[in-house]
């Protein structure tokens, strides 16, 4: 089966081994070392690491479409945020009457805006299964509609990048509006508990961290499975020579649509796991800057490797945490410099620098690919 095949690969096993080792080490250090020990991992750090893992899953999703399908999406933040909002809506409903205004049904911001009843699209989010299904369906549906329109009319390359950016920009503007019913500027926050567990306890935080780790592992295996399948090879063919693949009789737009939707769903899951850990979701997750930042994580780690995306996401975000803490002004310089340096000097990223990727996996730079991307 295509999902079990990657488990037999050495590279996947290594990745999963490292990931699980990291999860176990962090858990052990968090639970079994005393608070004042130098080795102790605080709950804050656990949540921070959980956040990195969410970003890693998001980066894997972007690498799937950019690395293997040749579609540079500058709007994956939108899928991430939609997943996050679906989860945020569930968490809002879980607050119940413990909010500031004590309304059993309406979230605080709706009471504040004098809304009388719940909008229809908030119905059902009090049930966990429905909310979790929406985490997959909302981004998936957007990707399906958008991708269907775009791929059918063969919008590719730079054009696609720019309209994905316009998509997330439009969504950001929309979610900033109070009338949308998603909390406007402030977004959704003040969450209490998830599935009955209090979000503010260390145990829940550790649980979320571990869940994110498992989600990343599953997401990685799914992507790896797709990439190594026949469909994955057609996807790579689309990336390198779209026109030629089409002439060979493959339905390029269907392959593209399938991979794009899967990637959007993965991004949605990443967003859903992100929200309970950081405790807030607001429209800034839709900002074009965030979406393009994801791309640079992938570029730094190494495009079309999947594990490179994970490395890139964790490294860049660690650097961001450190730099914004030490000297906030320097962060944008560093990020901007990273964009330039990686594209000009490190086209294959860290993965290309450290490991020698197999020839077939690297994006070819032949005239055909230019024909497809220009």
């Amino acid at each position, binding site marked *: 089966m295509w999902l079990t095949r990657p488990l037999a690969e050495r590279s996947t096993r290594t990745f999963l081994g490292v990931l699980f080792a990291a999860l176990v080490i962090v858990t052990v250090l968090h639970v079994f070392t005393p608070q004042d020990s130098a080795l102790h991992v605080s709950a804050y750090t656990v949540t921070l690491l959980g956040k990195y893992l969410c970003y890693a899953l998001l980066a894997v999703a972007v690498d799937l479409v950019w690395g293997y399908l040749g579609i540079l999406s500058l709007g994956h933040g939108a899928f991430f945020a939609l997943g996050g909002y679906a989860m945020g809506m569930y968490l809002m409903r879980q607050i119940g009457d413990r909010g500031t205004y004590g309304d059993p049904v309406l979230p605080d911001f709706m009471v504040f805006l004098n809304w009388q009843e719940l909008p229809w699209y908030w119905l059902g989010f009090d049930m966990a299964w429905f909310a979790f299904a929406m985490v997959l369906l909302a981004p998936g549906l957007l990707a399906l509609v958008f991708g269907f329109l775009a791929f059918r009319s063969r919008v590719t390359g730079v054009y696609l990048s720019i309209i994905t950016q316009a998509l997330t920009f*439009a969504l950001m503007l929309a979610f900033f509006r109070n009338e949308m019913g998603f909390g406007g500027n402030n977004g959704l926050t003040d969450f209490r508990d998830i599935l009955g567990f209090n979000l503010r306890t260390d145990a829940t935080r550790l649980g979320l961290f571990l869940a994110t780790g498992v989600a990343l592992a599953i997401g990685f295996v799914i992507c790896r499975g797709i990439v190594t399948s026949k469909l994955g090879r057609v996807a790579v063919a689309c990336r390198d020579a779209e026109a030629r693949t089409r002439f060979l009789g493959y339905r390029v737009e269907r392959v593209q649509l399938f991979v794009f939707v899967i990637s959007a769903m993965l991004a949605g899951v990443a967003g859903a796991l992100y929200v309970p850990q950081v405790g807030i979701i607001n429209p800034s997750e839709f900002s074009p800057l965030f979406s393009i930042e994801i791309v640079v994580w992938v570029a730094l780690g190494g495009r079309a490797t999947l594990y490179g995306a994970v490395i890139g996401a964790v490294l860049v975000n660690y650097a961001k945490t450190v730099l914004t803490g030490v000297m906030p*002004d320097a962060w944008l310089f560093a990020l901007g410099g990273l964009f*330039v340096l990686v594209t000009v000097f490190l086209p294959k990223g860290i993965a290309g620098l450290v490991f020698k990727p197999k020839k077939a996996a690297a994006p070819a730079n032949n005239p055909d690919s230019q024909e497809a991307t220009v």
Partner: protein
Amino acid sequence: MGIIRLLSQLLLVCSLFWPGFAQAQVEDTEAQQLLTALADSSFAEKKAVVNRIASSGDERARGWLESFASNKLARIESSGQFIIVTDNRGRDWTVQSALTGENLGEFSRRDIDTVRVNNALRGELEDILSVIDLKSPDQSSRLTAARALKGSVDSALAERVPGLIDSEQSEPVRAALTEALAIYRVAEQGDLAAVETLSGSLNSQARAALQQAMRSDDPALVAAATKAMDSIEQKLTLNRAAETLYFGLSMGSVLVLAAIGLAITFGVMGVINMAHGELIMLGAYTTWGMQQLLPGQPGLALILSIPAGFLVAALAGVVIERTVIQYLKGRPLETLLATFGVSLILQQLVRTVVSPLNRTVITPEWMSGSVMINEALSLTLNRLYVIGFALVVFAGLMLIMRKTRLGLEVRAVTQNRAMARSMGIRATRVDILTFALGSGVAGLAGVALSQITNVGPNLGQSYIIDSFMVVVFGGVGNLWGTLLAGLTLGTINQLLEPWVGAVLAKIMVLVMIILFIQKRPRGLFPQKGRAAEG
């Protein structure tokens, strides 16, 4: 000899001034008498005195009556000197002489005796003041007064206005007076003949008067008023459409300015420059810097910023091209990422070096204000200038691309680089120059934008997506397409705004473009021929 001549000249000068001096003395005793009469008479008599003052023809009469109406005309108890109080806060009041206008310093309010006025007189005074204005020798102040009269004519004034109309020489003043009188007659007397005068008037008071007439019992009057109202409504709709169109064109020209540089770098060279917005920002900051260098001369600074902004942005463009873009030739997605990095660096640079806060760019006097077309439509001057500037820049670029050697070489290199090089064109030099040109135009856009929007580190970011949309919508590599797309998008946005609000209008335009791209992936005017393949 010399001394005698000097003395005689001195004498001559004195004799020349003497009669005038004497005259002023005489008038002032008269003025003193008038004001004394005003102060000492009873409220009943004051009305007559006021009329005497108004008809005295004294230039200062207006000031006296105005301060009298607002309780600021007063007399110093000890000397009987008449004063105008300029600041009546606190215990000591600042005053100036009512006769000479000379500043007399501060007086304790106990020493000051205010000339008393009541509400009946105040109402009276308002009319008299407007009549004084209407008799003023200056035509423009007569016109302002006549316009202000619309809707504020009362029965007392209505008797005097016809006389004023007859003696009035200037046509616009007379028209305004006639209209003011007609508004009074329609509203208060239900005058059928006056309704005719009001049909086609754009004044809101005229509409209010007609609405009042429409509610009357006289069917003939109602019919006439309804007819007049219809014609007004038609005219208003037309004016509103013209206003929307103007706002649309103005917004469109901003979009064209922001996008046209991109149309060169993206459309002609195929280079995705995400730092384009920041080049616009540099142009805007150049304007600000120029105004800091030339304090007190914002107009001159603005004009000098046009070449300066072009040069600064073009220079920045050359640096970007040489350090980043040239290594990424033929890899558009990588170029996009790298130039995005450059844009982040430029933004942060401005934040660190200048300030994270918005800077104030002064609008020179000749650019502020508006042109009044009629009472329902006035065009703001700065936007008018931006529209003109956008068209000039567009025409300039068109000329460069069509008529100069550079334009020819650029087109040649775009179409077939290898062939152009073998014909002896130095492709690298063309690349640099083209990129510099596109960037410089972004700088020009920044200079223009500094006049209509906030100048801050995020200025560029807010325009980059819109600019790309314009270029893509218009068809890559087509300057005419960019012009048309920019103007169209601006107008559509303005048409939608009153219906759905600014944010939703923007979202709808974005969604519309996304859908449009599905239908026509190559824009409004796709490139044809071999250059289009790729």
